């Protein structure tokens, strides 16, 4: 016999769908089927069932040979590494729960570490822009119930957040939006003809990297001031048409992704996108929201915020929290040889950092905590496998609109497998012993 677990939260992307149903065996050991999730989400659940899954910590010796070690040895290596380092980097945190993030913060404080999350290479620029000009935003339910003008800027939800459009932004019928997508106008700004762009009422296929100019032109058009014939490759008429479409809406939402946060001008792009939103609030109601990637990168920013006051790239090495992205951010530290140990949990810099940074990690004492064997594992000295958050252990996670949702446990983790939180607690305890603090 099998049973169905309902209201399951998907621990993959920042859409954080919480309506999944998972069929599991009666003994809570195996997932049989996943309903309601998109293909990526389904894969995440099924992947936890892989037969070749890492179950025991592994350590790499000088020659590059891997051997299995005990959990106690893994704790000891990690604790010694962090306790002895002058300025360790503790990176990741976006694919774990807030409970683990919170203990990570305590360890970082004790060891004078730099704590950074994946925002450093995706929406960090957004966070900086918010510090410059703020952010008028809303929850995704406001989009569902009120919004009739949707912009996707530099993002492709059809592939990256597959259920976003059906759950929140384009298709659902909400309280004031009973006609669903029929009463919504969709504008996509993207140099590529993505699958999202193909669905748009207006696709502004701008020249790559010229987002700032186009956003600026939209602000001009809103004011009814003169524009040149073309801006960023887009004809004046299209820009005016788009501005009018926005103005005539009752509720406008701009969603934006890494296509714009990591293109030229970086945080300045977001600055002006936010200012456009602010301008729109003088004509109608408008909000803007980053399409956050990992299911709990937002949570990491929140936990760091209430513990230390900054959302990412927090340098605790001087005994007080310091924040200066470009200086206290992971890649800058690695490339300047400013850190002497690297601890990774809940992300995969081996796959996403520039190769120059990855090489630096390979030369440092390093630990990777992850359910999977990842490219980061390959360059680390120790790999600690753990239970899947949101599959084998619950915990708090924050959606892209910062709504906190409690992820659920669906099946048991393999026998003897620790959770992130448990592993971090053991490391914290050991560090306290090493440092002789209560």
């Amino acid at each position, binding site marked *: 016999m099998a049973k169905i677990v309902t209201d399951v939260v998907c621990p993959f992307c920042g859409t954080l769908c919480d309506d999944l149903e998972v069929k599991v065996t009666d003994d809570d050991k195996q997932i049989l089927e996943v309903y309601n999730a998109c293909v990526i989400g389904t894969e995440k659940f099924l992947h936890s069932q892989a037969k070749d899954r890492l179950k025991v910590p592994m350590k790499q010796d000088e020659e590059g040979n891997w051997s299995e070690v005990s959990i106690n040895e893994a704790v000891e290596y990690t604790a010694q590494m962090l306790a002895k380092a002058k300025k360790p980097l503790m990176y990741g945190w976006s694919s774990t729960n807030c409970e683990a993030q919170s203990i990570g913060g305590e360890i970082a404080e004790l060891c004078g570490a730099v704590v950074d999350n994946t925002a450093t290479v995706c929406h960090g620029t957004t966070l900086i822009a918010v510090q410059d000009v703020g952010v008028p935003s809303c929850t995704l339910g*406001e989009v569902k119930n009120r919004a009739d003008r949707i912009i996707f800027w530099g993002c492709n939800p059809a592939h990256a957040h597959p259920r976003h459009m059906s759950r929140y932004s384009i298709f659902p019928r909400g309280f004031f939006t009973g006609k669903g997508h029929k009463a919504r106008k969709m504008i996509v700004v993207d140099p590529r003809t993505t699958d999202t762009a193909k669905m748009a009422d207006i696709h502004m296929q701008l020249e790559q990297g010229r987002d700032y100019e186009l956003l600026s032109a939209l602000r001009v058009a809103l004011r009814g001031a003169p524009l040149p014939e073309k801006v960023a490759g887009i004809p004046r008429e299209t820009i005016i048409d788009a501005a009018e479409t926005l103005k005539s809406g009752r509720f406008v939402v701009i969603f934006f992704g890494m296509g714009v946060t990591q293109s030229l001008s970086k945080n300045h792009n977001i600055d002006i996108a936010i200012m456009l939103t602010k301008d729109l609030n003088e004509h109608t109601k408008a909000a803007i929201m980053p399409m956050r990637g990992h299911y709990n990168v937002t949570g990491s920013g929140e936990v760091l915020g209430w513990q230390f*006051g900054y959302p990412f790239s927090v340098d605790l090495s001087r005994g007080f929290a310091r924040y200066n992205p470009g200086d206290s951010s992971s890649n800058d530290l690695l490339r300047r040889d400013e850190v002497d140990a690297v601890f990774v949990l809940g992300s995969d810099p081996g796959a996403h950092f520039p190769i120059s940074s990855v090489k630096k990690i390979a030369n440092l004492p390093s630990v990777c905590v992850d359910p999977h064997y990842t490219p980061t594992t390959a360059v680390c000295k120790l790999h600690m496998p753990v239970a899947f958050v949101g599959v084998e252990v619950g915990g708090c996670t924050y959606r892209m609109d910062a709504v906190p949702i409690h992820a659920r446990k669906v099946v048991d983790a393999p026998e003897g497998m620790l959770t992130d939180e448990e592993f971090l607690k053991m490391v914290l305890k050991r560090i306290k012993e090493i440092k002789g603090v209560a």
Partner: protein
Amino acid sequence: MAEYLIKNGFVFDPVLGIKGDRTDIAVKDGKIVESTALSNPQVIDAAGKTVMAAGVDIHAHVAGPKVNAGRNFRPEDKLFTYKAGKGAMRMAGGFSIPTTFKTGYEYARMGYGTVMEAAMPPLYARHVHEEMRDTPIIDEGAYPVFGNNWFVLEYLKNNELENTAAYISWLLQTTRGYAVKIVNPGGTEAWGWGLNCNSIHDPVPYFDITPAQIMKGLMEANEYLKLPHSIHIHTNNLGNPGNYETTLDTFKLFEGEKPKDSFGRSQVMHHTHVQFHSYGGDNWGNFESKADVMMDYVNAHDNLTIDIGQVTLDETTTMTADGPFEHHLTELNHLKWANRDVELETAAGIVPYIYSPDIKVCGIQWAIGLELALMAKDLMRVFITTDHPNAGPFTRYPRVMKWLMSQKAREAQIDAMKYGDKVRDATFIAGLDRELDLYEIAQMTRAGTAKALGLGHMYGSLKVGMEGDVAVYDYNPETADDPELIEKAFGNAAYLFKAGEMVVRDGDILSNGRKRTLWVDVKVNDNPQVRRDITEKFLKYYTVSEANYEVHEEGYLRNPFRIEVDATQ
């Protein structure tokens, strides 16, 4: 657990009527006891010092999504304020929006033991509780916001009192909330369309109900449920010249109403940060104080309580569920603006603000807050707050006490303003020579607030049987003459005992205490219609499922303290 005998201090306890007599206070097993009950106490020499129950803050924004958004979008707020961790303390920083650790430490250092988070968006309740869990020492509770909630708007439009009450019971339960908070009733829902309700009779778009009906209806439901605290109101039209009339209209809605609870409160309505609601004039040029009108009303009606929302003349961060007001503010000062509308429930905005002593309006606002207190007849009903961090950070409470206790200090402050004379002209402050004493300060900061919260049986007094929450200040009311000593002493408690444990000594934090989270569990008769409505709204309009909405005690609440109320009769 250690026993303490706090000897020879000048004790101020409005509940016991002690006005500075030298009395010994005994603490054992977490409670106040008779000194004869002690067997081997540690003796604290409080000679020459002031002894009071620990402070109880009725209204501050100290945890949750807008507080944290404020932290994260203001790195500049952390400049010059960071302290390294030491002993029991984690590193801590921030000025107007301190980190959770600093929030706990700073309240404890001021001798406060209990603080209420004044606005919890229900959908974000989990976040509020996560932050409170990481805030050491102080007991906390949070008020979920109800004044723009679609369930409430619909039930009240149809005059469905019992359904409103059943929904309140469900939401308090589900969010682990403490009281019914109302912020800009109807106006914040209107803000969903970029609109507002500027008077209590402006209809809410689509919902066809007025703010007056919302407030009155929620009051009736609150009394029907016999909740420990009354409804807690921030009315419409905050911050605008001439708004005192809206505030008076709000007060008048409750004329003749009596509380029905069994927790000992005397009010049916608490109006918060009344300073922001007491403005005369019709523009910023002829802006003036209407504190006299407000206090004439408050003094003559004993079924309401207020807190002052004192402007402290600092750079701070404003944040409120009054979404349209924050938009108005960013248009006024052109500083950065964050806003977040919350589906079916509420909204919030955040804007940094500088209350400069060189700006006339700020000076007038500063005067109004003090006037409200100085014109009050009954300080058991008028409380000190700064609406932290809106009118200034809570860490300025000792300074507010100084201003209230010393006319000399007030005059010095007005003299330091660029437009001091204009401030005097537009206010009553110069004519007020009243100086509050420590007994009155104890009313405004512990006895009165504890009573208004329905927590008079636990906090706010040193009566035998109360919680062992005792603050000792190095302040001698018989010899001290310099007002600066007030500010210094009340910001650096000589001792704070929290639930019988010594957590502060000479301004240093010794322990993180055993912080509790207070919430109200009110039982009502089963109500199938409300249950059905909830299920339907979650299916159709919310973006989280009903099953994922509840905040469970386990994991999210540090030492949950459930206050049970039975409203089934």
